[in-house]
């Protein structure tokens, strides 16, 4: 059981310094025209059979998230927004502080019922209902996200945000709100460890130059009757390339996701489905090997939330993933989740959930080195969070 206190302590100290600068309030702080927000959450995991985020079979505190951000309105059309963020999740994330997003937002069109603008810088990619705020405990539907959000080490960073240009547009009518958002990311170098992890390579085989080429993300979403019904269609496409003296490789991946939510006074239902298509080429003159591959994977979940009171919500979810349609029996995994969250005050949130896991896809490989992954595991997770 390891806890990385130094980073957490630094982040908490920074957040506290910001907190003491203002009187207690329920929402963001205003500091010289900058609207500030922040959050910190600490988790605990205990599991049987496989490790999740640290050595959770012995109990792990190795899971926290903290961030601080702000928005500054330069004039009615122009604003600047940014967020710094640190996350520790077992061996998969080390708690280092990084720039989560930082962009200028120019609203070039605004009418009484619609608006359009663009953002330039590091922007969040829209995908499903939760990707754009996936690292914030307060906005997730549960402590751990469904498999559709590809929590795997390496993939989440590529998926989460892009450096580039984002266009957005919304239209509000009496019964409906429609949004369109598209990100055009620039080609960027990526860590070869990330590439190795995605390709499943072993120590140092892929030491070379890796690139993420032209990531593109788009989402069309609509809310009917004040959000009683919400639906979204998301698309993400990117090419990963790798070049070294030993091997060259290229992987094209695209994901289509469909999302539907029905909100009632006490109950809401969320259903999301995604289809991931990958096509790859691989050539290694050094080893005399070459090949190509293509696969399709699917993921879907259904979650029901029951709000017993405005502060207490119970949720359950069935989450299924088919890693490769052609090998359904070897690559499928199911996670059943049962949990509750309680907000004793608007700034505080506590949650606890149990997961029954069948299959190895939801188990982080990186937290289980040199051991056989069991087909079944049970996991208990708790988290406490504070925001301002």
């Amino acid at each position: 059981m390891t806890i990385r206190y130094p980073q957490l302590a630094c982040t908490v100290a920074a957040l506290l310094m910001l907190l003491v600068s203002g009187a207690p309030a329920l929402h963001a702080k205003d500091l010289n025209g900058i609207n500030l927000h922040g959050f910190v959450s600490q988790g605990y995991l205990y599991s049987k059979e496989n490790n999740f985020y640290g050595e959770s079979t012995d109990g792990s505190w190795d899971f926290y998230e903290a961030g601080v951000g702000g928005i500054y309105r330069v004039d009615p059309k122009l604003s600047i927004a940014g967020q710094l963020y640190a996350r520790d999740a077992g061996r998969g994330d080390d708690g280092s502080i990084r720039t989560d997003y930082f962009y200028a937002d120019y609203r070039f069109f605004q009418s009484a019922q619609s608006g359009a603008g663009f953002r330039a810088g590091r922007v969040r990619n829209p995908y499903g209902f939760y990707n754009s705020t996936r690292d914030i405990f307060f906005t997730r539907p549960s402590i751990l996200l469904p498999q559709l959000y590809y929590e795997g080490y390496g993939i989440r960073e590529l998926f989460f945000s892009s450096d580039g240009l984002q266009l957005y547009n919304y239209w509000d009518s009496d019964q409906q709100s429609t949004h369109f958002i598209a990100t055009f990311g620039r080609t960027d170098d990526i860590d070869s460890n990330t590439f190795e992890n995605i390709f499943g390579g072993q120590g140092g085989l892929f030491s070379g130059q890796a690139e993420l080429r032209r990531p593109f993300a788009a989402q069309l979403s609509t809310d009917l009757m004040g959000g009683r019904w919400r639906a979204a269609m998301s698309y993400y496409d990117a090419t990963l390339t790798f070049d070294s003296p030993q091997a060259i490789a290229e992987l094209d991946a695209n994901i289509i996701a469909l999302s539907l939510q029905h909100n009632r006074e006490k109950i809401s239902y969320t259903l999301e489905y995604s289809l991931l298509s990958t096509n790859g080429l691989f050539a290694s003159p050094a080893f005399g090997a070459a090949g190509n591959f293509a696969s399709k994977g699917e993921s879907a979940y259904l979650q029901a939330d029951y709000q017993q009171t405005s502060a207490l919500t119970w949720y359950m979810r069935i989450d299924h993933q088919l890693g490769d349609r052609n090998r359904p029996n070897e690559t499928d995994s199911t996670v059943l989740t049962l949990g509750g969250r309680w907000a004793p005050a608007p700034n505080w949130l506590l949650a606890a959930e149990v997961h029954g896991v069948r299959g190895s896809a939801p188990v982080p490989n990186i937290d289980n080195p040199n051991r056989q992954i069991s087909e079944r595991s049970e996991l208990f997770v708790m988290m406490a969070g504070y925001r301002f």
Partner: protein
Amino acid sequence: MPSRLPNTYGTFSMGEAGLSKAGCNHPSSLLASLIFWLVATFPLAAEEATGAVQVIVNDAVELPPSLSSGTLRSVFFGRMQSWPDGTPVTVFVLPESHPAHKTFCITFLKTFPYVLRKQWDQLTFTGSGNAPTVVATTYQLYDKVRSTPGAIGYANQLPGNDSPVKFVGSNTQLTDPKFRF
């Protein structure tokens, strides 16, 4: 006049069919249906609106020529961030548990407080807008809207004033926009 009890609750059977249909091709559809059925049979509390509320707007605001539910949703969901004259929109609300907040959400925005709160969190944490300022009492809310240019909020309707919108401030001299809520 706002409709106090919006007739938008008759859609559940449609949703049930939609969800079941989507689940049919899925290997876990049986279990999913079971969970759905279990949850759907939880008791539902009646939605109630207590006392009428009206939108209050700072009278220095130049409102759009017609104020519709669409515009009100743009404003309260945080999408519209400045009025036509460029004044920033500043939204004041009561705590989520306050009956007037619930009434306002249901009557004017046709939504539930928790749906609105999730939208505000989304705005805040993606940097795409500012969540409204929460004040503790209706008196504070009235006072803030009266004294802040570009402010909008809501208050209980007083006897004899059943207009959906009331302008508050020091110099009430307004054009008369059309309201369609």
